[in-house]
């Protein structure tokens, strides 16, 4: 049997891409949750091990990843609310795009200060004067 042909991507509209993003963020957060429960479980082992692990979190790279995590959760949460609105509000399907644009706007509005606060420490330690 010949191989399936190399086709092109389906160029779906925003509805499709928001779903892709929702799924990707959901899976990411799920794996993080696994890791997070594991590391937190270390508090049962000994405070030192826990502190050691948590200390490794306090470097700039992990700090950036952390911003990513918050972004992922935030997007997933907002989009989840949009999906719920589509599910239960009669006119939801008709305004799904508008809701998505609103969601993205809100996402940006929330993410900017959040990222600022989260990264402030890193900035300060890396380049900071304080």
């Amino acid at each position, binding site marked *: 049997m010949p191989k399936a042909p190399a086709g092109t991507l389906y160029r779906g509209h925003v509805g499709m891409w928001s779903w892709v993003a929702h799924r990707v963020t959901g*899976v990411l957060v*799920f794996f993080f949750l696994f890791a997070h429960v594991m590391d937190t479980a270390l508090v049962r082992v000994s405070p030192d091990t826990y502190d050691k692990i948590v200390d490794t979190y306090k470097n700039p790279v992990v700090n950036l990843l952390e911003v990513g995590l918050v972004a992922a959760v935030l997007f997933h949460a907002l989009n989840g609310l949009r999906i719920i609105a589509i599910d239960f509000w009669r006119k939801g399907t008709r305004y799904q795009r508008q809701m998505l644009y609103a969601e993205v706007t809100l996402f940006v509005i929330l993410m900017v200060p959040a990222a600022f606060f989260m990264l402030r420490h890193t900035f300060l330690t890396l380049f900071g004067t304080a």
Partner: protein
Amino acid sequence: MATALEDFGSPAIESPRARRQRPGQRSRTNFELYSWIFMRLSGVLLVVLVLGHLLIMNVMDGGVQRLNFGFVAGRWSSPFWQTWDLLQLWLAELHGTNGLRTVINDYAERDGTRLWLKMLLYTSAGLVLVLGTLVIFTFDPNIG
């Protein structure tokens, strides 16, 4: 009608994926319905729980920078935070597991693969739930 394409010894493009059997009306349960509703309900609760959690832990007051054993010990001495975290743990894990179940249903083509992936998923979910619950309830601020 089955058309016997093979008779001609010339190829046809392979099906885009293995044909799957639709289970038919076998399962007259409401499982999918309840799990669908659960995704929405837990989602709404998680907005408060998870976003609140992230806000407190990662954003406010220097975020992760102030995390240490002592901080955790302080938090879990309060039943409020214990409940919060327990709820969050269970809802998020069940929500995520159920979400991943869907993802596996979508992409794992062979029944065998599907079964294995789901076993793995449920085992890990069980592990996380048991471990997490244990930690929150049996946490002993004085081991240090």
